[in-house]
């Protein structure tokens, strides 16, 4: 039972990271019909920015401050990279969704290639404070502190995003744009600015997801391809949750994260089943598509 609870806890943490990666992707697709392949790149760039901050700044700052700065830096890096991408590469190609996908694929390959050239293709270690590695003892359970960080970030972003979309003027424009872009434009509202904003928000969440994944799940290691492997699970979450739906992404991310943790532990231990955790997410996708082709929270066209 204890093991089950610990697994649930880390499953929720994984789900939180999937949510951060997937919700931006889903919003971008919902508003602009762009399948953003460079989302994996934003995650990787975030992780590398975090690495640079944590290793370049003087250690007299103290490890906790450095980690916080690394997380903030990763988020800003993701936002910056996404904003620049939208303005320079995506904007000139509006109305050509295939070209926009292709551009993001090319960008992802090119910049990941650059990272491999600059940092090498081997994984690099980020220094983190001890308390992130240690577990907390709660009611007979040992829960890793890093997972608290991921869950906290996931909850804050989910609430913040929902409030932003519900209450602010731009949030309302974005929601309206997801429903019917042409109508928003016809009402004389500059949707283009909302496009850039959505990219920046999505990029910031991706950068955050990238550094959190590094800290919580990959043993503080950063590597050039980490974002692209996370991206595949983000895709799965987006399709299961329903394209364009934030709540769908949140629910699907939780389900996928939990499923992956449970199957990895309970079935993955047998020989030849090591990858069952990853496989099960794809199986879930196939089942959901058979049952509900538009995903859990997908709109009816």
């Amino acid at each position, binding site marked *: 039972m204890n093991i089950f609870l610990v697994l649930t806890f880390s499953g929720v943490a994984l789900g939180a990271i999937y949510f951060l990666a997937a919700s931006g992707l889903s919003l971008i697709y919902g508003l602009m019909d762009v399948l953003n392949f460079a989302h994996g790149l934003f995650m990787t760039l975030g992780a590398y920015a975090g690495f640079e901050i944590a290793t370049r700044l003087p250690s007299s700052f103290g490890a906790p401050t450095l980690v916080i700065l690394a997380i903030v830096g990763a988020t800003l890096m993701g936002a910056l990279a996404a904003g620049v991408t939208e303005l320079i590469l995506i904007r000139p190609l509006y109305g050509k969704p295939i070209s926009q996908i292709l551009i993001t694929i090319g960008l992802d390959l090119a910049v990941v290639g650059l990272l491999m*050239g600059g940092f090498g293709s081997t994984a690099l270690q980020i220094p983190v404070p001890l308390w992130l590695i240690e577990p907390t003892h709660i009611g007979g359970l040992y829960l890793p502190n890093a997972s608290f960080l991921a869950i906290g970030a996931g909850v804050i972003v989910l609430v913040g995003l929902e409030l932003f979309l519900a209450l602010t003027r731009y949030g309302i424009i974005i929601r309206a744009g997801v429903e019917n872009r042409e109508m928003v434009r016809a009402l004389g509202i500059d949707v283009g600015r909302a496009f850039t904003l959505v990219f920046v928000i999505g990029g910031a969440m991706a950068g955050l997801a990238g550094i959190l994944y590094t800290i919580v799940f990959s043993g503080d290691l950063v590597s050039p391809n980490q974002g692209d492997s996370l991206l*595949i699970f983000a895709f799965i979450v987006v399709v299961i949750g329903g394209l364009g739906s934030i709540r769908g992404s949140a629910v699907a991310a939780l389900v996928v994260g939990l499923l992956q943790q449970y199957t990895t532990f309970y079935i993955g231990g047998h020989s030849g089943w090591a990858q069952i955790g990853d496989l099960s997410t794809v199986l879930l996708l196939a089942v959901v598509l058979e049952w509900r082709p538009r995903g859990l929270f997908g709109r009816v066209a």
Partner: protein
Amino acid sequence: MRRPFYRSGPLVGVACLGLFIVLPFIGLHLPWVLPGTLDIVNSTGTLEVLALCFMFAGIAVGYDMMFGYTGLMSLGPVLYFAVGTYVFDIALTHWEWPLFPSLLLTFGVSLVLAVVLGAIALRVHGIAFAMVTLAFAQAFYFLVESNPHNLTGGDTGLSLSYNRLPAFLSGAVSNTRNLYWIALAFLVVAYLIVWLVTESVTGHVFVAVRENELRLDVLGVRPFRFKMVSFVVSSLIATGGGIVYILVIGTAVPSVVASTTVTLSILIMVVLGGAGTRWGAVIGAMVYVYLQQYLDKVGAEPSFTRLPAVLRVPLSEPQFLLGAIFVLFVFFAPGGIAGLVVRRRIQRASAATLLSVFKKS
């Protein structure tokens, strides 16, 4: 009188084919065109690279039928490619089946997978279809990595056992020539299949599916069946390519054979060459594989190490250069190489027409 451009194509194609057939007998030395140790045209290394070019060209043509003609952006062709390499490899190496039953099994598995997974993936459209096919392909990658029953060899991969293969196909260096011709034959067969299908009535419906699926539905034509045919035929061609790959290279490693990188390479080849043109995909694949080899070799040249890091790091990273070239193409030449060629010819043709009008008046 200039030959109209649309008729010169097949002639150029047949001439190139003839040249490639006799190429293994030509011992030409091309120090600048081919990098490093590959500079002799019929050396084993060069023939192997060319065989890879042909293999990718065949797969790219098949993918072009699905992506360029039918408008289905699958991100899963690597699945059927990997099925080709692994199932064929396992049948020959682990079960020691003879050649033909192995071939039959490989295509059979691929057919069943393509029909089942195609039926699920085609329930969604556009971008979601791309994501779902990507997820399925990734599932196969996970499966291969996890080495079920020690069949696939996991991370380290699985080498092909040549015991049950006919002598002329065995991995001996002297047989590279035969494998080269097999790869060329695969390209020709793939091209002919795609040519026959796309020029047929079915092929015209493919284009209609790409242009306006809803209208087809209204006209009483079920788009699903045509999308399925396009998907399955394209997948089977990719499986054929996988078989050629394992024959030529002799080892299947998941990160090389089954990862998303292969899918993206195929997509880039087709777009670089020009989607929806058939021959564009062939040229795109040749250029891509050639550039990849060339940039890899050039990046390791000693003169490069003297450059400052700002230049050296990007220029010695083939993935960066290929990605950048691709971005430039999508931006400035969305029709790919084929688009550039056709545009030039149309410009020339219209200039000639103008000129003749002037002469008459």
